[in-house]
Protein backbone atom coordinates (compact mmCIF):
# COMPACT_ATOMS: atom_id res chain seq x y z
CA UNK A 1 0.00 0.00 0.00
CA UNK A 2 2.88 2.39 0.69
CA UNK A 3 4.02 2.52 -2.93
CA UNK A 4 0.43 2.90 -4.11
CA UNK A 5 -0.22 5.79 -1.74
CA UNK A 6 3.03 7.40 -2.86
CA UNK A 7 1.94 7.12 -6.48
CA UNK A 8 -1.49 8.62 -5.84
CA UNK A 9 0.08 11.51 -3.95
CA UNK A 10 2.56 12.05 -6.74
CA UNK A 11 -0.16 12.02 -9.37
CA UNK A 12 -2.21 14.56 -7.48
CA UNK A 13 0.87 16.68 -6.84
CA UNK A 14 1.65 16.59 -10.57
CA UNK A 15 -1.91 17.55 -11.39
CA UNK A 16 -2.18 20.37 -8.91
CA UNK A 17 1.35 21.55 -9.43
CA UNK A 18 0.14 23.00 -12.67
CA UNK A 19 -2.19 26.02 -12.89
CA UNK A 20 -4.11 24.13 -15.58
CA UNK A 21 -5.85 22.00 -12.97
CA UNK A 22 -7.08 25.08 -11.15
CA UNK A 23 -8.17 26.67 -14.39
CA UNK A 24 -10.16 23.57 -15.19
CA UNK A 25 -11.79 23.56 -11.77
CA UNK A 26 -12.51 27.27 -12.04
CA UNK A 27 -14.02 26.86 -15.48
CA UNK A 28 -16.34 24.08 -14.43
CA UNK A 29 -17.43 25.86 -11.25
CA UNK A 30 -18.05 29.09 -13.13
CA UNK A 31 -19.97 27.46 -15.98
CA UNK A 32 -22.15 25.62 -13.49
CA UNK A 33 -22.82 28.72 -11.45
CA UNK A 34 -23.83 30.81 -14.43
CA UNK A 35 -25.96 28.11 -16.07
CA UNK A 36 -27.64 27.18 -12.80
CA UNK A 37 -28.35 30.78 -11.92
CA UNK A 38 -29.68 31.59 -15.37
CA UNK A 39 -32.09 28.66 -15.43
CA UNK A 40 -33.14 29.29 -11.85
CA UNK A 41 -33.87 32.90 -12.66
CA UNK A 42 -36.07 31.96 -15.59
CA UNK A 43 -37.77 29.22 -13.56
CA UNK A 44 -38.55 31.69 -10.77
CA UNK A 45 -40.09 34.06 -13.27
CA UNK A 46 -42.31 31.36 -14.78
CA UNK A 47 -43.26 30.07 -11.36
CA UNK A 48 -44.14 33.53 -10.17
CA UNK A 49 -46.38 34.01 -13.19
CA UNK A 50 -48.28 30.81 -12.65
CA UNK A 51 -48.33 30.73 -8.88
CA UNK A 52 -49.95 34.13 -8.79
CA UNK A 53 -53.02 32.57 -10.40
CA UNK A 54 -52.80 29.25 -8.57
CA UNK A 55 -55.36 28.26 -5.97
CA UNK A 56 -52.46 27.18 -3.86
CA UNK A 57 -52.46 24.39 -1.36
CA UNK A 58 -53.38 21.11 -2.91
CA UNK A 59 -54.40 22.26 -6.35
CA UNK A 60 -51.50 21.57 -8.71
CA UNK A 61 -53.51 22.00 -11.89
CA UNK A 62 -52.76 25.71 -12.27
CA UNK A 63 -49.04 25.04 -12.81
CA UNK A 64 -48.26 23.18 -16.05
CA UNK A 65 -46.36 19.91 -15.87
CA UNK A 66 -43.23 21.28 -17.44
CA UNK A 67 -42.81 23.97 -14.79
CA UNK A 68 -40.81 22.14 -12.21
CA UNK A 69 -37.32 22.29 -10.78
CA UNK A 70 -36.28 19.10 -12.48
CA UNK A 71 -37.08 20.03 -16.06
CA UNK A 72 -36.38 23.76 -15.83
CA UNK A 73 -33.15 23.71 -13.84
CA UNK A 74 -31.65 20.33 -13.05
CA UNK A 75 -31.96 18.81 -16.48
CA UNK A 76 -30.43 21.70 -18.49
CA UNK A 77 -27.60 22.08 -15.96
CA UNK A 78 -26.93 18.39 -16.05
CA UNK A 79 -26.90 18.25 -19.84
CA UNK A 80 -24.54 21.21 -20.02
CA UNK A 81 -22.23 19.82 -17.39
CA UNK A 82 -22.26 16.45 -19.11
CA UNK A 83 -21.10 18.04 -22.34
CA UNK A 84 -18.51 20.02 -20.41
CA UNK A 85 -17.16 16.82 -18.95
CA UNK A 86 -16.94 15.28 -22.40
CA UNK A 87 -14.93 18.29 -23.50
CA UNK A 88 -12.66 18.49 -20.46
CA UNK A 89 -12.00 15.01 -19.16
CA UNK A 90 -10.02 13.72 -22.16
CA UNK A 91 -7.74 16.73 -21.78
CA UNK A 92 -7.10 15.72 -18.18
CA UNK A 93 -6.55 12.04 -18.92
CA UNK A 94 -4.48 12.31 -22.08
CA UNK A 95 -1.24 12.86 -20.21
CA UNK A 96 -1.68 10.28 -17.46
CA UNK A 97 -0.08 7.32 -19.20
CA UNK A 98 1.04 8.80 -22.51
CA UNK A 99 3.26 11.39 -20.89
CA UNK A 100 4.96 8.70 -18.81
CA UNK A 101 5.74 6.77 -21.97
CA UNK A 102 6.89 9.85 -23.85
CA UNK A 103 9.16 10.95 -21.00
CA UNK A 104 10.12 7.32 -20.33
CA UNK A 105 9.40 7.81 -16.69
CA UNK A 106 7.33 4.63 -16.96
CA UNK A 107 10.65 2.84 -16.83
CA UNK A 108 11.33 4.49 -13.48
CA UNK A 109 7.87 3.49 -12.23
CA UNK A 110 8.24 -0.07 -13.35
CA UNK A 111 11.53 -0.48 -11.55
CA UNK A 112 10.00 0.41 -8.21
CA UNK A 113 7.88 -1.84 -6.03
CA UNK A 114 4.80 -0.71 -7.94
CA UNK A 115 3.27 -3.56 -9.86
CA UNK A 116 1.53 -2.78 -13.16
CA UNK A 117 -1.76 -3.28 -11.37
CA UNK A 118 -0.80 -0.75 -8.71
CA UNK A 119 0.45 1.71 -11.31
CA UNK A 120 -2.84 1.56 -13.15
CA UNK A 121 -4.81 1.63 -9.92
CA UNK A 122 -2.89 4.62 -8.60
CA UNK A 123 -3.34 6.63 -11.78
CA UNK A 124 -7.00 5.75 -12.03
CA UNK A 125 -7.55 6.68 -8.41
CA UNK A 126 -5.83 10.04 -8.76
CA UNK A 127 -7.78 10.84 -11.93
CA UNK A 128 -11.06 9.86 -10.31
CA UNK A 129 -10.21 12.08 -7.34
CA UNK A 130 -9.70 14.96 -9.75
CA UNK A 131 -13.03 14.28 -11.47
CA UNK A 132 -14.68 14.19 -8.06
CA UNK A 133 -13.07 17.52 -7.16
CA UNK A 134 -14.26 18.95 -10.48
CA UNK A 135 -17.80 18.07 -9.62
CA UNK A 136 -17.45 19.11 -6.01
CA UNK A 137 -16.36 22.55 -7.16
CA UNK A 138 -19.48 22.82 -9.27
CA UNK A 139 -21.72 21.27 -6.63
CA UNK A 140 -21.19 23.88 -3.95
CA UNK A 141 -23.37 26.64 -5.34
CA UNK A 142 -26.40 24.55 -6.42
CA UNK A 143 -26.29 22.66 -3.13
CA UNK A 144 -26.14 25.85 -1.12
CA UNK A 145 -29.10 27.24 -3.05
CA UNK A 146 -31.15 24.08 -2.62
CA UNK A 147 -30.46 23.98 1.11
CA UNK A 148 -31.19 27.67 1.48
CA UNK A 149 -34.52 27.04 -0.17
CA UNK A 150 -35.31 24.45 2.46
CA UNK A 151 -35.40 21.56 0.02
CA UNK A 152 -33.61 18.30 0.53
CA UNK A 153 -30.37 17.52 -1.24
CA UNK A 154 -31.33 14.07 -2.42
CA UNK A 155 -32.48 14.97 -5.90
CA UNK A 156 -29.45 17.16 -6.51
CA UNK A 157 -27.28 14.39 -5.11
CA UNK A 158 -28.80 12.02 -7.66
CA UNK A 159 -28.03 14.50 -10.45
CA UNK A 160 -24.43 14.82 -9.33
CA UNK A 161 -24.09 11.10 -8.85
CA UNK A 162 -25.01 10.80 -12.51
CA UNK A 163 -22.42 13.39 -13.43
CA UNK A 164 -19.85 11.66 -11.29
CA UNK A 165 -20.34 8.25 -12.87
CA UNK A 166 -20.37 9.84 -16.32
CA UNK A 167 -17.13 11.57 -15.41
CA UNK A 168 -15.68 8.28 -14.23
CA UNK A 169 -16.70 6.56 -17.45
CA UNK A 170 -15.21 9.35 -19.57
CA UNK A 171 -12.06 9.32 -17.47
CA UNK A 172 -11.85 5.57 -17.86
CA UNK A 173 -12.14 5.85 -21.62
CA UNK A 174 -9.48 8.56 -21.63
CA UNK A 175 -7.15 6.60 -19.38
CA UNK A 176 -7.45 3.47 -21.52
CA UNK A 177 -6.68 5.50 -24.64
CA UNK A 178 -3.76 7.16 -22.86
CA UNK A 179 -2.40 3.78 -21.88
CA UNK A 180 -2.35 2.61 -25.48
CA UNK A 181 -0.12 5.36 -26.86
CA UNK A 182 2.86 7.57 -26.10
CA UNK A 183 1.29 10.57 -27.79
CA UNK A 184 -0.97 12.79 -25.70
CA UNK A 185 -2.59 14.10 -28.84
CA UNK A 186 -3.49 10.62 -30.04
CA UNK A 187 -4.75 9.80 -26.56
CA UNK A 188 -7.01 12.83 -26.50
CA UNK A 189 -8.33 12.42 -30.04
CA UNK A 190 -9.08 8.74 -29.57
CA UNK A 191 -10.73 9.43 -26.20
CA UNK A 192 -12.97 12.04 -27.79
CA UNK A 193 -13.81 9.72 -30.65
CA UNK A 194 -14.68 6.76 -28.42
CA UNK A 195 -16.71 8.91 -26.04
CA UNK A 196 -18.53 10.48 -28.94
CA UNK A 197 -19.40 7.15 -30.50
CA UNK A 198 -20.49 5.63 -27.20
CA UNK A 199 -22.45 8.66 -26.06
CA UNK A 200 -25.58 7.65 -27.90
CA UNK A 201 -25.93 4.68 -30.21
CA UNK A 202 -29.24 5.78 -31.63
CA UNK A 203 -27.44 6.57 -34.88
CA UNK A 204 -26.73 2.87 -35.32
CA UNK A 205 -30.43 2.07 -35.62
CA UNK A 206 -30.19 3.53 -39.11
CA UNK A 207 -28.12 0.51 -40.06
CA UNK A 208 -29.42 -2.14 -37.68
CA UNK A 209 -33.09 -1.34 -37.53
CA UNK A 210 -35.30 -0.76 -34.53
CA UNK A 211 -35.03 -4.32 -33.25
CA UNK A 212 -31.64 -3.62 -31.79
CA UNK A 213 -32.83 -0.29 -30.41
CA UNK A 214 -33.21 -1.38 -26.78
CA UNK A 215 -29.81 -3.07 -26.86
CA UNK A 216 -28.14 0.00 -28.31
CA UNK A 217 -29.89 2.14 -25.75
CA UNK A 218 -28.53 -0.09 -23.02
CA UNK A 219 -25.00 0.35 -24.40
CA UNK A 220 -25.16 4.12 -24.70
CA UNK A 221 -23.93 6.59 -22.11
CA UNK A 222 -26.50 9.32 -22.60
CA UNK A 223 -29.80 7.50 -21.92
CA UNK A 224 -28.44 6.06 -18.71
CA UNK A 225 -26.91 9.34 -17.68
CA UNK A 226 -30.16 11.16 -18.31
CA UNK A 227 -32.04 8.99 -15.83
CA UNK A 228 -30.12 10.48 -12.95
CA UNK A 229 -31.56 13.89 -13.75
CA UNK A 230 -34.97 12.44 -12.90
CA UNK A 231 -33.79 11.71 -9.38
CA UNK A 232 -33.85 7.96 -9.92
CA UNK A 233 -30.68 6.01 -9.20
CA UNK A 234 -30.75 2.55 -10.74
CA UNK A 235 -28.18 0.06 -9.57
CA UNK A 236 -27.97 -1.28 -13.15
CA UNK A 237 -26.88 2.16 -14.35
CA UNK A 238 -24.24 2.40 -11.62
CA UNK A 239 -22.94 -1.03 -12.59
CA UNK A 240 -22.90 0.01 -16.24
CA UNK A 241 -20.74 3.04 -15.58
CA UNK A 242 -18.53 1.11 -13.17
CA UNK A 243 -18.06 -1.40 -15.98
CA UNK A 244 -16.25 1.26 -17.98
CA UNK A 245 -13.77 1.70 -15.15
CA UNK A 246 -13.26 -2.02 -14.75
CA UNK A 247 -12.78 -2.68 -18.47
CA UNK A 248 -10.56 0.36 -18.94
CA UNK A 249 -8.49 -0.75 -15.96
CA UNK A 250 -8.03 -4.15 -17.55
CA UNK A 251 -7.10 -2.58 -20.89
CA UNK A 252 -4.53 -0.27 -19.29
CA UNK A 253 -3.00 -3.08 -17.30
CA UNK A 254 -2.81 -5.29 -20.35
CA UNK A 255 -1.19 -2.46 -22.26
CA UNK A 256 1.48 -2.00 -19.59
CA UNK A 257 2.31 -5.69 -19.60
CA UNK A 258 2.12 -5.86 -23.37
CA UNK A 259 4.77 -3.13 -23.58
CA UNK A 260 7.20 -5.43 -21.82
CA UNK A 261 6.68 -8.09 -24.45
CA UNK A 262 6.47 -6.02 -27.59
Amino acid sequence: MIPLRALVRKELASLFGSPLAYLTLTGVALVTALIFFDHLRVYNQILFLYSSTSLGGFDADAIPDFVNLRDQVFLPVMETLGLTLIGLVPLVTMRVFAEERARQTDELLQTTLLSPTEIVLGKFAATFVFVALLLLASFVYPAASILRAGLGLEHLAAVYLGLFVLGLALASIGLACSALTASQLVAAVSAYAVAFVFYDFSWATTFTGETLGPLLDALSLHPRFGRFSEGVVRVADLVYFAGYAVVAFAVARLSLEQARVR
Partner: protein
Amino acid sequence: MVEQANAAPNGGIAVEARDLVRRFGARVAVDGVTLRVEPGEAFGLLGANGAGKTTFIRLVTGYLLPSAGSVRVDGLSPALAARAVHARIGYVAETSRLYPELRVRGFLRFVGGARGLAGEALDAALADALERFELLAVAGRLVGNLSKGYQQRVSLAQAFLHDPPLVIVDEPTAGLDPLQQAEVRDVLASLRGRRTLLLCTHDLAEARALTSRVAILSRGRLVACGPTAEVLGAGDPLALFRESAREAS
Protein backbone atom coordinates in the same frame (compact mmCIF):
# COMPACT_ATOMS: atom_id res chain seq x y z
CA MET B 1 6.89 -8.97 1.90
CA VAL B 2 10.18 -8.75 0.03
CA GLU B 3 12.63 -11.27 1.29
CA GLN B 4 16.14 -10.26 2.15
CA ALA B 5 18.65 -10.16 -0.69
CA ASN B 6 21.23 -12.88 -0.83
CA ALA B 7 23.95 -10.31 -0.42
CA ALA B 8 27.50 -11.36 -0.38
CA PRO B 9 29.46 -10.62 2.80
CA ASN B 10 31.08 -7.67 1.04
CA GLY B 11 27.68 -6.43 -0.27
CA GLY B 12 26.00 -6.85 -3.61
CA ILE B 13 24.14 -9.58 -5.45
CA ALA B 14 24.76 -11.53 -8.59
CA VAL B 15 23.33 -10.95 -12.05
CA GLU B 16 23.34 -13.81 -14.48
CA ALA B 17 22.26 -13.94 -18.11
CA ARG B 18 22.11 -17.21 -20.02
CA ASP B 19 21.59 -17.31 -23.79
CA LEU B 20 19.58 -14.14 -23.43
CA VAL B 21 17.74 -13.07 -26.58
CA ARG B 22 15.47 -10.09 -27.26
CA ARG B 23 13.87 -9.40 -30.59
CA PHE B 24 11.90 -6.39 -31.76
CA GLY B 25 10.06 -7.80 -34.72
CA ALA B 26 12.76 -8.94 -37.17
CA ARG B 27 15.53 -7.04 -35.43
CA VAL B 28 17.54 -8.91 -32.79
CA ALA B 29 18.66 -6.45 -30.14
CA VAL B 30 20.23 -8.95 -27.76
CA ASP B 31 21.47 -12.13 -29.34
CA GLY B 32 22.34 -15.03 -27.06
CA VAL B 33 24.27 -13.14 -24.39
CA THR B 34 25.68 -15.20 -21.55
CA LEU B 35 27.49 -13.48 -18.74
CA ARG B 36 27.64 -13.30 -14.95
CA VAL B 37 28.20 -10.34 -12.69
CA GLU B 38 29.54 -11.43 -9.34
CA PRO B 39 28.21 -10.01 -6.07
CA GLY B 40 29.99 -6.81 -5.12
CA GLU B 41 31.62 -6.52 -8.51
CA ALA B 42 31.85 -3.34 -10.53
CA PHE B 43 31.02 -4.54 -14.01
CA GLY B 44 31.10 -2.45 -17.15
CA LEU B 45 28.97 -2.98 -20.23
CA LEU B 46 30.42 -1.33 -23.30
CA GLY B 47 29.42 -1.06 -26.93
CA ALA B 48 28.59 1.35 -29.71
CA ASN B 49 25.21 2.99 -30.02
CA GLY B 50 22.61 0.38 -30.88
CA ALA B 51 24.74 -2.49 -29.64
CA GLY B 52 22.08 -3.64 -27.20
CA LYS B 53 23.37 -2.31 -23.90
CA THR B 54 20.23 -0.50 -22.87
CA THR B 55 18.08 -3.41 -24.01
CA PHE B 56 20.21 -5.74 -21.90
CA ILE B 57 19.78 -3.44 -18.91
CA ARG B 58 16.04 -3.38 -19.45
CA LEU B 59 15.98 -7.15 -19.50
CA VAL B 60 17.82 -7.18 -16.18
CA THR B 61 15.39 -4.70 -14.61
CA GLY B 62 12.41 -6.54 -16.04
CA TYR B 63 11.15 -3.54 -18.00
CA LEU B 64 11.38 -5.82 -21.04
CA LEU B 65 10.85 -9.56 -21.17
CA PRO B 66 13.32 -11.82 -23.00
CA SER B 67 12.31 -13.48 -26.22
CA ALA B 68 14.43 -16.45 -25.24
CA GLY B 69 16.98 -17.39 -22.64
CA SER B 70 16.94 -16.20 -19.06
CA VAL B 71 18.22 -13.55 -16.78
CA ARG B 72 18.40 -13.78 -13.03
CA VAL B 73 18.99 -11.16 -10.39
CA ASP B 74 20.00 -12.70 -7.12
CA GLY B 75 18.57 -15.92 -8.49
CA LEU B 76 15.20 -14.29 -9.19
CA SER B 77 13.51 -13.80 -12.53
CA PRO B 78 12.67 -10.13 -13.25
CA ALA B 79 9.74 -11.31 -15.35
CA LEU B 80 8.12 -13.46 -12.70
CA ALA B 81 9.39 -11.98 -9.44
CA ALA B 82 9.44 -8.35 -10.47
CA ARG B 83 8.70 -6.91 -7.07
CA ALA B 84 11.47 -8.87 -5.39
CA VAL B 85 13.96 -7.92 -8.09
CA HIS B 86 12.98 -4.25 -7.97
CA ALA B 87 13.52 -4.21 -4.24
CA ARG B 88 17.12 -5.15 -4.94
CA ILE B 89 17.80 -2.70 -7.76
CA GLY B 90 18.61 0.96 -7.98
CA TYR B 91 18.52 2.15 -11.56
CA VAL B 92 19.91 5.32 -13.09
CA ALA B 93 18.74 5.56 -16.68
CA GLU B 94 20.63 7.03 -19.59
CA THR B 95 18.42 10.07 -19.81
CA SER B 96 16.90 11.44 -16.71
CA ARG B 97 13.65 9.74 -15.85
CA LEU B 98 12.44 12.56 -13.73
CA TYR B 99 9.22 14.46 -13.18
CA PRO B 100 9.96 18.09 -13.98
CA GLU B 101 6.79 19.34 -12.31
CA LEU B 102 7.83 17.96 -8.92
CA ARG B 103 10.27 19.56 -6.54
CA VAL B 104 13.44 17.68 -5.67
CA ARG B 105 12.34 16.78 -2.18
CA GLY B 106 8.89 15.77 -3.42
CA PHE B 107 10.32 13.67 -6.20
CA LEU B 108 12.68 11.84 -3.89
CA ARG B 109 9.90 11.37 -1.36
CA PHE B 110 7.76 9.84 -4.08
CA VAL B 111 10.47 7.47 -5.26
CA GLY B 112 11.21 6.52 -1.67
CA GLY B 113 7.57 5.75 -1.10
CA ALA B 114 7.40 3.83 -4.36
CA ARG B 115 10.28 1.77 -3.07
CA GLY B 116 8.40 0.95 0.10
CA LEU B 117 9.92 3.47 2.46
CA ALA B 118 7.69 5.33 4.86
CA GLY B 119 7.73 7.30 8.06
CA GLU B 120 11.03 7.76 9.79
CA ALA B 121 12.85 5.41 7.43
CA LEU B 122 11.81 7.56 4.49
CA ASP B 123 12.72 10.78 6.26
CA ALA B 124 16.14 9.42 7.15
CA ALA B 125 16.79 8.12 3.63
CA LEU B 126 15.68 11.42 2.18
CA ALA B 127 17.92 13.45 4.45
CA ASP B 128 20.85 11.16 3.74
CA ALA B 129 20.33 11.34 -0.02
CA LEU B 130 20.02 15.11 -0.05
CA GLU B 131 23.25 15.43 1.89
CA ARG B 132 25.23 12.74 0.12
CA PHE B 133 24.45 14.06 -3.33
CA GLU B 134 24.68 17.70 -2.24
CA LEU B 135 21.11 18.52 -3.12
CA LEU B 136 20.20 20.43 0.02
CA ALA B 137 20.53 23.77 -1.71
CA VAL B 138 18.08 22.79 -4.44
CA ALA B 139 15.73 20.58 -2.43
CA GLY B 140 12.83 23.01 -2.83
CA ARG B 141 13.31 23.69 -6.50
CA LEU B 142 11.41 22.19 -9.39
CA VAL B 143 13.29 19.32 -10.99
CA GLY B 144 12.58 20.73 -14.42
CA ASN B 145 14.36 23.96 -13.53
CA LEU B 146 17.60 22.29 -12.47
CA SER B 147 20.77 22.14 -14.55
CA LYS B 148 21.65 18.86 -16.21
CA GLY B 149 24.27 18.17 -13.60
CA TYR B 150 21.87 18.59 -10.73
CA GLN B 151 19.26 16.53 -12.51
CA GLN B 152 21.77 13.72 -12.83
CA ARG B 153 22.50 13.98 -9.11
CA VAL B 154 18.78 13.70 -8.42
CA SER B 155 18.67 10.70 -10.70
CA LEU B 156 21.53 9.12 -8.77
CA ALA B 157 19.99 10.01 -5.44
CA GLN B 158 16.71 8.27 -6.24
CA ALA B 159 18.56 5.09 -7.08
CA PHE B 160 20.16 4.90 -3.63
CA LEU B 161 17.24 5.81 -1.42
CA HIS B 162 16.47 2.23 -0.51
CA ASP B 163 20.13 1.20 -0.27
CA PRO B 164 19.91 -1.46 -2.97
CA PRO B 165 22.52 -4.23 -3.27
CA LEU B 166 22.59 -3.79 -7.08
CA VAL B 167 22.96 -0.45 -8.80
CA ILE B 168 22.57 -0.22 -12.56
CA VAL B 169 23.83 2.97 -14.12
CA ASP B 170 23.37 3.73 -17.80
CA GLU B 171 25.67 6.41 -19.24
CA PRO B 172 25.84 8.37 -15.99
CA THR B 173 28.10 11.14 -17.31
CA ALA B 174 26.53 11.67 -20.72
CA GLY B 175 26.02 15.36 -21.38
CA LEU B 176 27.82 16.52 -18.23
CA ASP B 177 30.74 18.93 -18.12
CA PRO B 178 34.11 17.57 -16.94
CA LEU B 179 33.64 18.79 -13.39
CA GLN B 180 30.22 17.16 -13.13
CA GLN B 181 31.58 14.01 -14.69
CA ALA B 182 34.28 13.83 -12.06
CA GLU B 183 31.77 14.29 -9.26
CA VAL B 184 29.58 11.48 -10.56
CA ARG B 185 32.51 9.17 -10.94
CA ASP B 186 33.58 9.89 -7.39
CA VAL B 187 30.14 8.84 -6.17
CA LEU B 188 30.21 5.67 -8.20
CA ALA B 189 33.74 4.86 -7.07
CA SER B 190 32.65 5.07 -3.47
CA LEU B 191 30.22 2.24 -4.09
CA ARG B 192 32.85 -0.27 -5.04
CA GLY B 193 32.86 -3.33 -2.82
CA ARG B 194 29.74 -2.36 -0.95
CA ARG B 195 27.30 -3.35 -3.62
CA THR B 196 27.19 -4.68 -7.17
CA LEU B 197 27.60 -2.02 -9.82
CA LEU B 198 26.56 -2.59 -13.41
CA LEU B 199 27.77 0.34 -15.46
CA CYS B 200 26.88 1.03 -19.10
CA THR B 201 29.19 3.52 -20.67
CA HIS B 202 30.85 4.70 -23.87
CA ASP B 203 33.72 6.19 -21.94
CA LEU B 204 36.73 3.86 -21.84
CA ALA B 205 38.47 5.95 -19.20
CA GLU B 206 35.38 5.79 -17.05
CA ALA B 207 35.24 2.03 -17.50
CA ARG B 208 38.92 1.68 -16.60
CA ALA B 209 38.46 3.83 -13.51
CA LEU B 210 35.30 2.35 -12.17
CA THR B 211 35.06 -1.29 -13.21
CA SER B 212 36.95 -4.47 -12.50
CA ARG B 213 35.43 -6.44 -15.36
CA VAL B 214 33.87 -5.41 -18.64
CA ALA B 215 31.85 -6.93 -21.43
CA ILE B 216 31.58 -5.52 -24.95
CA LEU B 217 28.39 -5.95 -26.95
CA SER B 218 28.19 -5.68 -30.71
CA ARG B 219 24.89 -5.93 -32.55
CA GLY B 220 23.46 -7.69 -29.54
CA ARG B 221 26.24 -10.24 -29.32
CA LEU B 222 28.87 -10.51 -26.64
CA VAL B 223 32.22 -10.00 -28.38
CA ALA B 224 34.46 -9.69 -25.35
CA CYS B 225 34.25 -10.26 -21.63
CA GLY B 226 36.89 -10.26 -18.95
CA PRO B 227 38.96 -8.17 -16.54
CA THR B 228 38.96 -4.54 -17.53
CA ALA B 229 42.71 -4.31 -17.83
CA GLU B 230 42.80 -7.29 -20.16
CA VAL B 231 39.90 -6.37 -22.40
CA LEU B 232 40.68 -2.70 -22.65
CA GLY B 233 44.43 -2.94 -22.22
CA ALA B 234 45.19 -5.47 -24.93
CA GLY B 235 45.94 -3.83 -28.22
CA ASP B 236 43.49 -1.33 -29.54
CA PRO B 237 40.24 -1.69 -27.66
CA LEU B 238 38.68 0.72 -30.10
CA ALA B 239 39.09 -1.98 -32.70
CA LEU B 240 36.40 -3.89 -30.88
CA PHE B 241 34.23 -0.84 -30.98
CA ARG B 242 35.02 -0.17 -34.61
CA GLU B 243 34.16 -3.72 -35.44
CA SER B 244 30.99 -3.44 -33.52
CA ALA B 245 30.24 -0.02 -35.00
CA ARG B 246 30.86 -1.35 -38.49
CA GLU B 247 28.59 -4.25 -37.84
CA ALA B 248 26.09 -2.01 -36.23
CA SER B 249 25.98 0.20 -39.27
